[in-house]
């Protein structure tokens, strides 16, 4: 059984106050971080985490960071990430986490991405890995974790205004968007998740569980809010491994769950499917897995069934499933099936439950899902057009399609162009830019990236590119570019002659139409 907890203290009002409360109320609770190979681990108590963040905040202040400044954090899952991200938040900055470099090569593309992000957010602040540092200009404001720790110390600003941090998400045109998450949202959402998971047991989660075990990246809303902030809020021990460690050695996730007395852990559908398909070794006892949240991409009933069949005998209870729906623009959770288990309708769509506490959800006539509540973001940073198009009278247009039945939501599709690969949102233009840098049209040769259903493998990325001189070699080069820059393997590269990709009158590539032509063989 989980260990007893002190009286649950009241809600904090800012993100730094959430950390301070975690250190005060749950000083001995820990964050355990596995290294990049999944071999070694280090544990830090919440009290240490707070102390380190306070120190980092003083260095940020000494370097000149002022309240409201965005800070790009491009580090792998590590204590350095915690110091930089929490430190920036405690200095009144707006931390914005982005993916660190991974795999072989890819440094150039990563450096370019960070520079674009700094320009877009109009900030000089960024923390990067020592590997990437030499590829970036020698300018003040750019740090490795060691350089940050050596910066002068000063008294940091207090947070000012309603914003707590920025969350990167896919935009339908051109570039990523930085979602403005409020302090209210950053506090409300972990509380909402705690309440929602707690319902079938009639008590907050700390009464019947005590750890979160995850491999979700901290630059992903489900990893950041659903695991990291959630653990700090509830006082759960957090065990976290870098996502590549899970992908290379997935049994480590279930091994860590096995060793804990009461576990809560979210993952996208892909993570559960991956366990079924890829884990070949290890002995598990999953009877302590109290709640397995599944969300962030379409939930497949066949994955749920396969996972139940494979891991039921190791103690995994079907009642542990918690289908949920959320998105970065809602801080994270919007709806939650609080009953335990998975329910589907006649068309095989999974019920993702009712709106979380203090939140409303409605579906327009065309199925467009809209949500309103304390978790809804304040808009997109420095992008008023996108903000106006997404938020209206406090209602967020999610870009997803669904239906409400008896107060519960079923997701049936999405309207945004976002590609979801292994649970990660990828912006199609990121792939297209890499492809177009190879086909070299200088803007004249366009391309369209989309995903196709790869069955059990999940969605697979495909690029259709314009070129008047298509060749095997060109396709290979595009695969290489995309693989290096983004760590994504393209399932297929197809060529069409220049000008053959359908565009809107304003010149925007119509990806959904290209996808339809590809799927029907009409290209």
């Amino acid at each position: 059984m989980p260990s007893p907890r002190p009286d649950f203290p009241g809600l904090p009002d800012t993100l730094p106050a959430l950390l301070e409360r975690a250190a005060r109320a749950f000083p001995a609770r820990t964050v355990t971080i596995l290294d990049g190979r999944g071999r070694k681990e280090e544990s830090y108590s919440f009290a240490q985490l707070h102390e380190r963040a306070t120190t980092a905040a003083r260095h940020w202040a000494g370097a000149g960071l002022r309240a409201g400044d965005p800070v790009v954090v491009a580090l792998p899952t590590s204590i350095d990430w915690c110091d930089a991200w929490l430190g920036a938040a405690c200095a009144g900055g707006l931390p914005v986490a982005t993916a660190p470099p991974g795999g072989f090569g890819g440094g150039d593309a990563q450096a370019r991405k960070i520079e674009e992000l700094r320009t877009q957010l109009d900030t000089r602040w960024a923390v990067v890995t020592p590997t990437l540092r030499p590829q970036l200009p020698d300018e003040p404001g750019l740090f490795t974790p060691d350089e940050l720790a050596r910066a002068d110390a000063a008294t940091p600003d207090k947070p000012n205004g309603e914003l707590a941090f920025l969350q990167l998400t896919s935009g339908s045109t051109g570039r990523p968007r930085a979602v403005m998450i409020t302090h209210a949202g950053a506090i409300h959402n972990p509380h909402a998740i705690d309440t929602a998971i707690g319902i079938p047991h009639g008590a907050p989660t700390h009464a019947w569980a005590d750890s979160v075990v995850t491999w979700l990246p901290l630059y992903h809303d489900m990893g950041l809010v659903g695991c990291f902030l959630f653990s700090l809020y509830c006082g759960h021990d957090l065990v976290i491994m870098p996502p590549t460690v899970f992908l290379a050695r997935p049994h480590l996730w279930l091994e860590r769950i096995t060793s804990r007395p009461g576990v809560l852990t979210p993952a996208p559908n892909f993570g559960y499917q991956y366990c079924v398909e890829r884990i070949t070794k290890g002995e598990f006892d999953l009877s302590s897995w109290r709640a397995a949240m599944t969300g962030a991409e379409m939930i497949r009933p066949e994955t749920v069934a396969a996972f139940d069949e494979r891991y039921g005998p190791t103690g995994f209870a079907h009642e542990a499933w918690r289908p949920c729906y959320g998105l970065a623009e809602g801080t994270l959770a919007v709806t939650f099936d609080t009953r335990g288990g998975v329910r589907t309708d006649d068309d095989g769509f999974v019920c993702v439950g009712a709106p979380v506490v203090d939140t409303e959800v409605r579906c327009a006539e065309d199925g467009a899902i809209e949500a309103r509540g304390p978790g809804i973001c304040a808009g997109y940073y420095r992008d008023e057009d996108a903000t106006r198009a997404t938020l209206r009278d406090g209602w967020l247009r999610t870009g997803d399609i669904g239906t409400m039945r008896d107060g519960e939501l079923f997701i049936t599709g999405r309207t945004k162009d976002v590609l979801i690969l292994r649970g990660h949102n990828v912006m199609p233009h990121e792939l297209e830019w890499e492809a177009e840098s190879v086909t070299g049209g200088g803007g004249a040769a366009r391309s369209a990236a989309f995903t196709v259903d790869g069955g059990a493998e999940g969605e697979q990325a495909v690029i259709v590119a314009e070129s008047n001189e298509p060749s095997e070699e060109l396709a290979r080069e595009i695969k290489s570019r995309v693989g290096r820059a983004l760590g994504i393997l393209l399932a297929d590269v197809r060529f069409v002659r220049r000008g053959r990709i359908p565009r809107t009158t304003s010149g925007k590539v119509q990806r959904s139409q290209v996808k339809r032509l590809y799927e029907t063989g009409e290209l």
Partner: protein
Amino acid sequence: MMEEMDRTETVLDVVAEVSGRNRSEVTLEQDLVADLEIDSPKALQLLVQIEEKLEIEIPDEAAARFEKVRDLVEFVT
């Protein structure tokens, strides 16, 4: 300490296994990403196995610069 040739063989064996290729198909000039389709999780599998078999550590800074099979072999020999 293994002989240089054995170390090369070990690397090629692991590359073949992780990339799902026949050992005879793997050559030094192949591109790890474009030819062998080694994405970031496979890259980590590769590094973990080579590190364990050769009892070495390959820092991320070095791994980030590997492009061809040859780069990997040159690092460990």
